[in-house]
């Protein structure tokens, strides 16, 4: 059973797109243009009007974004928002068929808008010449019905997923590398999200980017076309959606594998008791931040929250030790990251509760009491570092869902 698709009603307001979606009925030009859709029972006049009223956000106007934009525009999706802040480079043209040779050096948005206008002048393009970040994602995604992911990095993929889950928007996922592609529809009611499948980002260095690993130019054409199919089916409410299934394609052996993906009740974002209820710093989450060392320079004895965020998702996570008073711990803590709680006053009487041979990171609210705790434990022979800025810095820079007493 696929979930019931839904299209948001047209938004009010003076924007050109709103005017376009108010005028849902098809003009004579459009009836001629969409004739091959209109005879399809799953589309017809009503379906074509749904497409015209639809607002789709495309994140990335690159390899995947090219076929998605071209096919959705040709199909008559009324409003296409595009997020991209890149310019067209010569090495894009092997796969990014939205752009041409004369576009080299031009912004991808300008190039995309011109090409889409040529493919179908009835489509309204809403350009977003920015990089999607935790600060702007909810605002940008909010006014759209559905999001298609054509990004090229893990932090933005986790960001798009989490924003879609939080805003209850379908997330059409696609990814390519070398000869392999993946496609799925996430964040529809009852279905899984990207985090249900890939809970943790991969260790840095294991998975190459297209720049390092290469990609067959046709591959994003196939995967992006499948993304466009799923977007159109969701808008129309037609067929069986690719929700609860991950499609894995290998172009070298030309095989399509499908695995069943269920919503994970323990998913930190879409689970029954989500532990993350806002957007976080995804560069830190994915360990791609080039941040080096700690501000104080005393790396053996202290670390900052970005270092910690990287370390606790790595291969040898340190043990977190909360030394605040009980009421502070009860108000909010890092127990879900494996933290132990021993108040500073009791610490030296309870050192037998600390596992031997494990690196420890002490924390409190601001980093003062835990500095004291770290020094005491160190003199008792433990390997301890203090978390600079404490839980307040953690909540501010890494995970805003943690409440700090």
């Amino acid at each position, binding site marked *: 059973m696929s979930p019931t698709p839904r299209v948001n009603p047209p938004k009010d307001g003076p924007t050109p797109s709103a005017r376009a979606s108010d005028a849902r009925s098809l003009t004579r030009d459009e009836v001629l243009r969409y004739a091959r859709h209109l005879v399809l029972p799953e589309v017809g006049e009503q379906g074509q009007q749904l497409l015209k009223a639809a607002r789709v956000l495309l994140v*990335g106007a*690159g*390899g*995947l*974004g090219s076929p998605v934009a071209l096919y959705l525009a040709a199909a008559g999706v009324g409003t296409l928002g595009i997020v991209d802040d890149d310019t067209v480079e010569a090495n894009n043209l092997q796969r990014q068929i939205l752009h041409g040779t004369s576009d080299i050096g031009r912004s991808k948005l300008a190039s995309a808008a011109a090409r889409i206008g040529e493919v179908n002048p009835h489509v309204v393009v809403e350009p977003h010449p920015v990089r999607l970040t935790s600060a702007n994602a909810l605002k940008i995604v909010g006014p759209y019905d559905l999001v298609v*992911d*054509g*990004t*090229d*990095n*893990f932090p933005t*993929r986790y960001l798009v997923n989490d924003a879609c889950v939080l805003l209850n928007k379908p997330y059409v996922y*696609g*990814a*390519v*590398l*070398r000869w*392999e*592609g*993946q496609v799925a529809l996430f964040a529809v009611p009852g279905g899984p999200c990207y985090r*249900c*499948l*890939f*809970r*943790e*980002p*991969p*260790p840095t260095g*294991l*998975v*190459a*980017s*297209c720049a390092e*690993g290469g*990609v067959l130019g046709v591959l*994003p054409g196939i995967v992006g076309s499948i993304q466009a199919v799923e977007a159109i089916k969701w808008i129309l409410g037609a067929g069986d959606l690719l929700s609860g299934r*991950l499609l*894995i394609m*290998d172009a070298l052996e030309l095989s399509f*594998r*499908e*695995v*069943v*993906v*269920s919503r*994970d009740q*323990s998913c930190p974002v879409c689970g029954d008791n989500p532990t993350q209820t806002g957007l976080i710093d995804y560069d830190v989450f994915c360990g791609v931040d080039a941040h080096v060392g700690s501000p104080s320079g005393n790396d053996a004895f202290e670390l900052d929250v970005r270092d910690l965020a990287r370390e606790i998702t790595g*291969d040898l996570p340190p043990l977190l030790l909360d030394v605040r008073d009980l009421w502070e711990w009860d108000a909010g803590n890092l127990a879900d990251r494996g933290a132990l709680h021993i108040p500073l006053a009791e610490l030296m009487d309870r050192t037998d509760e600390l596992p031997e041979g494990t690196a420890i990171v002490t924390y409190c609210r601001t980093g003062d009491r835990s500095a004291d705790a770290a020094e005491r434990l160190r003199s008792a022979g433990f390997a301890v570092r203090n978390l600079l800025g404490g839980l307040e810095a953690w909540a501010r820079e890494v995970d805003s869902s943690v409440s700090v007493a």
Partner: protein
Amino acid sequence: MQVRSLFFAAYRDAMGTGTLDVDLPEGATVGDLVSSIRSRGAPFNRLPKAPAVAINHEVMRGDARLTEGDEIAFLPPVAGG
């Protein structure tokens, strides 16, 4: 019991093979399989500790139990676009 591990894409490149048959005690979990593979040393220790896996074409978590003849596909995350 014996189970078969399948490595796709980046994992196949990293492990240098697409399949690996592994003997495990009865009642072993996905997590036990991952530990067993990682303990073989390089290059198998490049497998992450908690990778996404599908047992017989269904995505499962690390605490899922395995049975004789199971096929465990390791699904590499892919980011390119």
